[in-house]
């Protein structure tokens, strides 16, 4: 297993240090996140909300009502689910409003709370506007019906404007921790999450829209899959020892399943053509893939925090590198410029 992985890794990439290290009775140095799978599920629903909001805006702007409707309704549903997961995961759920006491740029969770709140308001009215047609044409409700449509459109574009932030801040949320494999992946995680969010949005479009309106969802599925797969590949292959948790155990199984389903969904979207059934299956495949990927990344981080070697060995390496560079600097000073020549 190990040898095979080494073979896959190109030679110039970071070298895995020898696995000799000392620890305190093998106990973890950093604490793994106490979050339950609520947070992993939120990573999916938050991304789904963002992807769907973008789908709705694109669909409305290009005259594809099926994409608009599906996008708006899914965005609201995913938002409600997100809020549930986030509140439920708190140690003191009744205090969830304390999140709104401050706006704090050093806390991605604080920023995320405000992003989600803004998105929620916008996505809420845009989904409500889908129900405008059900209201009577006269009276107070008639007035509401008239106002709701333009307000809903404004909300839809507002939500779409916030959506990219909603989909990517969660990557910063995970990376801004001492959890070794999350932190090390900070350059790529936002791209994986962005791709995953768009793929799930595309999945909604593929399931809900008739084939003559589903063209953009198909293209979106392919581009999003490429983005997600490239990011995941980088994380699994360029982080040296800290790539290992992504390639082992449950995290690896979930990430592999995610990758296979993403590829399958993208291929189905591309080749499924006019078949509603193939499109819907592709959409379902993309949604499941997004869910599996989020859980896989969540699991990999937890695994990297549980084993002290992922904390100790990279830090030993950075210490050694610093000592080496200090030594070179000292030698240079001691030898002076005259002695530097041969």
């Amino acid at each position, binding site marked *: 297993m190990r040898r095979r992985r080494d073979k896959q890794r190109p030679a110039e990439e970071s070298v895995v240090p020898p696995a000799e290290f000392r620890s305190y009775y093998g106990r973890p140095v950093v604490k793994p996140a106490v979050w339950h799978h609520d947070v992993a599920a939120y990573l999916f629903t938050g991304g789904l909300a963002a992807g769907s909001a973008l789908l709705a805006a694109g669909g409305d702007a290009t005259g594809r009502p099926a994409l608009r409707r599906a996008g708006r309704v899914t965005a609201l549903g995913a938002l409600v689910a997100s809020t549930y997961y986030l509140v439920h995961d708190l140690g003191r759920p009744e205090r969830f409003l304390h999140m709104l006491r401050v706006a704090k740029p*050093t806390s991605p969770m604080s920023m995320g709370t405000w992003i989600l709140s803004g998105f929620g308001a916008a996505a809420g009215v845009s989904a409500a506007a889908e129900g405008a047609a059900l209201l009577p044409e006269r009276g107070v409700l008639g007035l509401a019906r008239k106002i709701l449509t333009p307000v809903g459109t404004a909300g839809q574009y507002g939500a779409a404007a916030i959506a*990219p932030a909603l989909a990517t801040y969660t990557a910063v949320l995970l990376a801004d921790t001492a959890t070794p494999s999350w932190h090390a992946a900070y350059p790529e995680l936002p791209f994986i999450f962005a791709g995953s969010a768009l793929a799930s949005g595309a999945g909604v479009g593929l399931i809900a829209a008739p084939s003559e309106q589903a063209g953009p969802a198909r293209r979106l599925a392919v581009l999003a899959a490429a983005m997600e797969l490239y990011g995941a590949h980088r994380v699994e292959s360029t982080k040296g020892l800290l790539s290992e948790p992504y390639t082992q155990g449950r995290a690896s199984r979930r990430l592999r399943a995610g990758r296979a389903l993403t590829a399958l969904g993208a291929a189905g979207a591309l080749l499924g053509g006019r078949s509603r059934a193939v499109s819907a299956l592709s959409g379902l495949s993309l949604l499941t893939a997004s869910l599996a990927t989020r859980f896989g990344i969540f699991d990999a981080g937890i695994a990297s925090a549980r084993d002290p070697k992922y904390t100790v060995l990279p830090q030993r390496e950075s210490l050694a590198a610093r000592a080496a560079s200090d030594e070179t600097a000292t030698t240079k000073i001691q030898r002076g410029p005259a002695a530097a020549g041969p």
Partner: protein
Amino acid sequence: MAGKNSLYGPLDPAPDAGYVDPPPRMGFFTDTSVCIGCKACEVACKEWNLVPDDGFNLLGTSYDNTGGLTANSWRHVAFIEQPAVGGPAVDALAAAATITDPKPEPQFLGMPMSDLPGRTMDAPRSDFRWLMMSNVCKHCTHAACLDVCPTGALFRTEFGSVVVQEDICNGCGYCIPACPYGVIDRREDDGRAWKCTLCYDRIGDGLMPACATACPTQSIQYGELDELRARAQHRVEKLHEQGVAEARLYGHDPNDGVGGGGAFFLLLDEPEVYGLPPDPVVTTRDLPAMYKRAGLAALAMAAVVVASFVGGRS
């Protein structure tokens, strides 16, 4: 308020947090070379701060049945049994035999000696040593827990320490994976995050923190951080003179990855042997870079959506 070193680098944290003319920064210097592993610090901390028990387990890890710092253990005494460094291995039984007097009586019954250990006999040291260390929250200059707290429950005190406000914390748990030392933790039956407060309710009244007060060997020293750092430097030099080459300070350097700890240590082995990270870095050092990458990904997302809807015919 946010200076150029607000996220990383040497800094005096209280003025950076907005305090005008704060008192001197206070902290702990824990000198493990004189720790006797009595755990009085653990007990005193629990008593003063009304910290619940951490379970009554036998962990099989030497005399340590606490395990580590948790929501319910704000001081933790680590016990390490290891072969002594340097010098050839010595037969401990043979060494013990030299303790007895040449005269046949009295017999050595393992009772405490009447003289100071090591004074009467030039017995060779055994091949075994204990390391004991009372671990605690480092009250970092750049505290990741404080940086990432989304409610403002964690705050910087005027003494430079970091404290959780229990009436604000909503148990989001973000501080827990953020801490590079694995200190702060969520209490299961309570849902909130807890950790050492540097006895904020004592030091404001000029009292010492409970653990330092209870420590019988002054392994835990409390005081102004500048003074403690000077004292620690003196102590480590003294130990080196006495031939304890492995003595080193940990967490004292304002140029380290967390800007130096408000609590720092004198260790007799590598930090990881005590369960400490060898080169911790506050995660928020990289936060600007992280936001930048997220911004790029967000732009890429928008571009992909536009390309999908604008390109193509169907």
